[in-house]
């Protein structure tokens, strides 16, 4: 879900004004757009994030070349991955203070699901860090984020190359299922270790009269992908049809 949601409904990071990149669901509403200071800040934010995910991409490639295999590459990009993915929490703030026209709820959901996978699953259950499924979602996220943040950067500067828009609304077709597969396999791999260690679980009796079984919780999370993934996926497909066909029409009149 983290892979899917990240590209889905956000108009995020200031890319809303003007035709270029707009229309993530709003259509032809005239948005005020962020002021000059906010725009400058957002451009810097998005450039930094693009650079950060490029660092992760390069790190993956270099580690692959050095090791000669694609196993256990997580360790070579663990720190920048944690840093830049967690940094995305700022995007919730951007929506909350209004410099980005996305819904706080939707953005929170997508960022928190990413942060959850990074910290509450991959970081917390060390045994899954060498799983290939981790590489699967890391690659999906990396490519998605590089495109997404450059998309926002260019949109803010009102100069969006068609190739970026095309990439953003096309590559998800493969990247979403890839990311979701990686995420689900990783959670699944973590299950036995969570059960064994009683990780993040609390049982009765205790003075707070509360219990929590993280193992069951993870299973429920996996089940939640069933209704959520198709919805987000088909929403993006619908968006793709709307946005890419609109650009074709405009090109005709140029």
């Amino acid at each position, binding site marked *: 879900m983290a892979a899917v949601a990240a590209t889905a409904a956000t108009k995020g990071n200031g890319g809303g004004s003007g035709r270029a990149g707009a229309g993530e669901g709003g259509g032809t509403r005239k948005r005020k757009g962020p002021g000059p200071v906010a725009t400058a800040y957002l451009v810097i934010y998005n450039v930094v994030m693009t650079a950060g995910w490029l660092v992760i991409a390069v790190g993956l490639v270099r580690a692959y070349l050095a090791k000669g295999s694609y196993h256990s590459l997580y360790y070579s990009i663990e720190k920048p991955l944690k840093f830049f993915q967690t940094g995305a929490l700022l995007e919730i703030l951007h929506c909350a203070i209004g410099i980005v026209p996305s819904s706080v709820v939707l953005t929170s959901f997508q960022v928190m699901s990413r942060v959850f996978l990074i910290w509450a699953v991959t970081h917390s259950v060390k045994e899954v860090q060498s799983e290939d499924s981790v590489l699967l979602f890391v690659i999906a996220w990396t490519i998605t984020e590089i495109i997404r943040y450059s998309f926002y950067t260019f949109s803010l500067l009102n100069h969006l190359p068609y190739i970026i828009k095309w990439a953003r609304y096309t590559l998800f077709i493969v990247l979403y299922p890839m990311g979701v597969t990686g995420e689900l396999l990783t959670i699944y791999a973590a299950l036995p270790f969570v059960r064994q260690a009683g990780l993040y679980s609390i049982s*009765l*009796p*205790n*003075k*707070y*009269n*509360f*219990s929590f079984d993280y193992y069951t919780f993870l299973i429920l999370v996996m089940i939640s992908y069933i209704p959520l993934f198709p919805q987000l996926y088909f929403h993006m497909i619908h968006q793709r049809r709307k946005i890419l066909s609109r650009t074709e029409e405009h090109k005709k009149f140029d």
Partner: protein
Amino acid sequence: MRKMVEILDAKTREKLCFLDKVEPQATIAEIKNLFTKTHPQWYPARQSLRLDPKGKSLKDEDVLQKLPVGTTATLFFRDLGAQISWVTVFLTEYAGPLFIYLLFYFRVPFIYGHKYDFTSSRHTVVHLACICHSSHYVKRLLETLFVHRFSHGTMPLRNIFKNCTYYWGFAAWMAYYINHPLYTPPTYGAQQVKLALTIFVICQLGNFSIHMALRDLRPAGSKTRKIPYPTKNPFTWLFLLVSCPNYTYEVGSWIGFAIMTQCVPVALFSLVGFTQMTIWAKGKHRSYLKEFRDYPPLRMPIIPFLL
């Protein structure tokens, strides 16, 4: 001078209905009834009629003559979807928790281990909690039947599923722990329970007082809106400081119940409820300010001086 009314679909502009010889003093409610005759699947409660396809809905009491229309009035119709009455929703969503909590209290089979079936807790606070929780929902049911005066008769049908999931789900979650054989009574014992119970009872009385005061503001069958003011009942003096003291008291009741049971799910339920009621209180406060120029400036939406 009779008027003519044409009703168009707000989205497709398709002409749905043409009414001629409509009395100029006819209300929107009457027009809705006429429209239902030609389209019986759209009963009045699910009709939204407006002057502008994207504009606000006209009220049932609006009179045709007073609207900015010519001899032929063009109204735009939007289907609000299947509707259900507020009373039905309230009764269903409140009856659930009452019943469900008792299932856990009596330790009906298949909830806890079989050796606990139909056993009773040895903690006084557990029995007290059952009385508080049950009387709270009985109060709500009685208020729905005899006290509340609703400005809208209906709400969208899907709300009943949403609302019942919320109320019934949380009731089951709380009841599971409070009535669990391994329940741990409050850390500070009887003192804590006594204090919490006092808070709970005061807030329940307060909440009820506010409901009565709001009912008395509005005569039966009318939809008038007036600024609520403190009455002789001291519980209503909270109106001096907040717009929605009923919500303030409700949050207080649940905080009391949380302290009484010392149970995290109860605290979470209180928190979620508080969040929702704050949103409603802010909305209500805003509409009071918009509607009444002389609205008391000292009042905050839900928490005195703060929120």
